[in-house]
């Protein structure tokens, strides 16, 4: 762990109000400033006690503190280093260890994830009966079942989608594990929108995981392995720009050059990762926007807003659609509690944050919630369902744009 990065923190506390765990509990140890203090204690020789590890585990990695910090503290780097240190030094309780093993052997592997969908495919009635029971046995298992959306038909994407009209660019597209398995419609929409805006879209088959889940949980080596494989895959596909529609994947891929060393860092640097909204805003509109008479609440995914600084682009893209009215969600900078695997490992905190977010989403009175990250979509939908409130349909930015470009008049939403 890098003492110099730790010492950049001047203890001003400006990050406190943006930290979801501080918002929930109001305790110094569960604030960015407190966690950095704990890191310092550890570097200076205090052993990694279970209490200390607990406060690091409770961090969502949402990076709201990075946005808030006027001193430019690299909390993103720090927490990554710290998570790896926790995995090296901290002996977890057996049940915690078992759950982690399941998740890390499952989520980053699309094929295994596919096999898992069956037991998770519980229709409404059964779901409502089984979740309280799971809750008693293990809140994390309940969280898993509660979150998993019903499975939609598997979609095979072509390996290449040709640009409509004159070609403006050629880009690669990441399919992502969770996005690809649970929300294939989003990938279809992404490919179509890019094509309609004049891009040849190259979609390498069997892409595998980008490494985001592993990296955010301190599984450094697994993350590096996945990163190298992803780079090689897109090199083979012959593209130098990769468009990503899942915020968590995009933020990790933008860091590849920092995560990897030597030759691989150089190869990572030769490929540009861009978020879909970022890319489309940069490219400028070519295709015609057809009206969509809708009020839309846009949710800032942490890995988009905080980790990549992408806030204005999706809002601009959405507002440019005729008839569409954009609503802001209050406390938009506070995480919904999804945060990668967080809702599996810290189910209570995730639940409280989910409830907080659901309340604010519903308060907008919007017809549609737009979220650019599969984790957030699952989390917020589950929270709204828990409240027993009138469910609000959710769609990805790509799906809204797709509907407008194709002139559908309505948005085919993600089934919740």
């Amino acid at each position, binding site marked *: 762990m890098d003492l110099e990065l730790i*010492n*950049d923190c*001047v*203890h*001003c*506390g*400006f990050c*406190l*109000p943006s930290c979801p765990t*501080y918002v929930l*509990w*109001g*305790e*110094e*140890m569960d604030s960015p400033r*407190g966690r950095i*203090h*704990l890191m310092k*204690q550890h570097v200076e020789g*205090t052993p990694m*006690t279970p*209490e*200390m590890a607990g*406060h690091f585990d409770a961090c969502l990695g949402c990076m709201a503190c990075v946005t808030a*910090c*006027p*001193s*430019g503290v690299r909390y993103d780097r720090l927490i990554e280093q710290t998570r790896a240190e926790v995995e090296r030094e901290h002996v977890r309780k057996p049940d915690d260890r078992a759950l982690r093993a399941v998740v890390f052997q499952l989520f980053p592997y699309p094929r295994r994830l596919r096999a898992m969908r069956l037991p998770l495919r519980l229709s409404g009635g059964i779901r409502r009966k089984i979740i309280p029971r799971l809750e008693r046995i293990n809140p994390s298992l309940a969280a898993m079942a509660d979150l998993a959306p019903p499975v939609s038909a598997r979609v095979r994407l072509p390996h290449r989608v040709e640009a409509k009209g004159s070609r403006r660019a050629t880009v690669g597209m990441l399919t992502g594990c969770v996005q690809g398995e649970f929300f294939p419609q989003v990938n279809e929409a992404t490919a179509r929108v890019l094509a309609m805006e004049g891009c040849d879209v190259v979609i390498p088959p069997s892409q595998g995981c980008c490494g985001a889940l592993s990296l955010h949980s301190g599984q450094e080596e697994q993350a590096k392995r996945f990163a190298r494989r992803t780079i090689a895959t897109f090199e083979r596909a012959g593209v130098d720009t990769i468009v990503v529609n899942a915020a968590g994947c995009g933020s990790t891929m933008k860091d590849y050059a920092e995560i990897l060393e030597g030759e691989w860092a150089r190869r990572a640097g030769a490929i540009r990762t861009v978020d879909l909204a970022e890319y489309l805003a940069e490219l400028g509109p070519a295709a015609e926007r057809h009206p969509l008479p809708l009020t839309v609440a846009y949710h800032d995914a942490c890995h988009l807003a905080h980790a990549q600084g992408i806030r204005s682009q999706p809002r601009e893209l959405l507002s440019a659609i005729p008839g569409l009215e954009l609503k802001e969600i209050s406390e938009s900078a506070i995480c919904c509690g999804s945060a990668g695997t967080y809702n599996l490992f810290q189910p209570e905190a995730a639940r409280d944050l989910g409830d907080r977010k659901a309340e604010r989403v519903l308060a907008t009175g919007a017809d549609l919630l737009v979220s650019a990250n599969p984790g957030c979509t699952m989390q917020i939908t589950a929270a709204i369902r828990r409240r027993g409130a009138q469910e609000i349909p959710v769609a990805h930015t790509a799906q809204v744009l797709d509907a407008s470009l194709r002139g559908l008049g309505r948005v085919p939403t993600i089934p919740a």
Partner: protein
Amino acid sequence: MSTMTLQEPARRFEELLGHGAVITDPVRLRTYECDGLTHHRVMPGIVVLPESAEQIAAVVRVCNEYGLPFVARGAGTGLSGGALPRADGVLIVTSKMRRILSVDAANRRAVVEPGVTNLAITEAVRDLGYYYAPDPSSQQVCTIGGNVAENSGGAHCLKYGFTVNHVLALEIVTPDGDIVELSDGDPGYDLLGAFIGSEGTLGIATKVTVRLTRAPETVTTLLAAFKDIEQGGQAVSAVIGGGIVPAAIEMMDALAIEAAEAAVACAYPEGAGAVLIVELDGPAEEVAHQFGEVTRICEESGAFELRIADDPAERAAIWRGRKSAFAAVGRISPAYIVQDGVVPRTTLPEVLASIDRLSREHGIRVANVFHAGDGNLHPLVLFDDAEPGAGERAEIVSGKILDLCIEHGGSITGEHGVGVDKSRYMSRMFSDEDLDTMQLVRCAFDPRALSNPGKIFPTPRLCGEVPGVRKGVHPLVESGQAEHF
């Protein structure tokens, strides 16, 4: 006091507040060892996180039973070590008490718990057309309880006054554990006034009734860039001398601008040796008139660029650099001391020249940010803590700046308080008799000196910092001008 003797009170606190609200694990305790002034550190004996006034009162009563000193803490952003804990005592943290209890727009008041942040009050009433006027730069994080204790101010206090002008009533837990109310309408002594700015030494605020201010009809913000600080200072004197009371008038020097640029890319005019931010607010007509005057004065004083903001986004862009300045110096220096002093406005140019001399003499950079309208200086003394001796030299410069303030008839603190950090300067400003008289007030509230002992006063006197020990008779008591009761 050994940890053994803290075990029993800790158990009592757990009975009162529940297990989760009492911290005794050393790793966790250490995260509370300092506030925003990090070179004073003490690991608290126990930390408690109460959720109501009743719980605070109960904790304070237990402290009295065992003779334990206690210290209140809000967000821990204080810059004078006011919330520095006691190793033999209890840190009472209000960060879970952050409910806005009521908003009464018709009577322009709101009642809030002490852990509510300054900005949260404004956010809660903005849609009603009101705001909470005092605006410390730390407003998004500091608590109203901390503001009350420090009598905090901010850029807009020139026109609107400090915390003391905006708190209408308080509910406090007294140092012996009673819950009492202090209100500005109370007949007799102004106890509310005595409590505000008392830095946690007279008890703990548990409920704060604040005045809400009507949002002004028009706000215009102007940024003027000057070649140097002298020109900027001239403009300030001319504005105030001309009878204009801007909502705010703030100045930053070249080094402070450099830091702000590095942190938030505020894009202030290139080549500026000083920038002045002037904000005017009020009825449209009045603002328009004052605006004409201020632009004329700035131009006459040598401003080479003027920027004007009329909408909130442009205004925020101008303020962003200023509001981030303290924390932003972290970008250009590994370590720094935020100093806080006051000088009469007319002596500003002279004092700044002396600060510059000090800076060169000691080889320590000083960035200047200040509330120019009321002469409140915030010199940021920069140093590299890895360089041997640099910290000491920075301390010397920092201390000499305070001497300058006293010499010029000013004060050692404008808004950050005395805390532990400046207690040793108190005797440079006040005579022993003055300090003893202040102690009499303190003893009237807190005869056992349990509430935040060791702060403000340079040496324990009179009722003493040790419970029950009294040193001699106070001169005022001896001369018959005051008495103990």
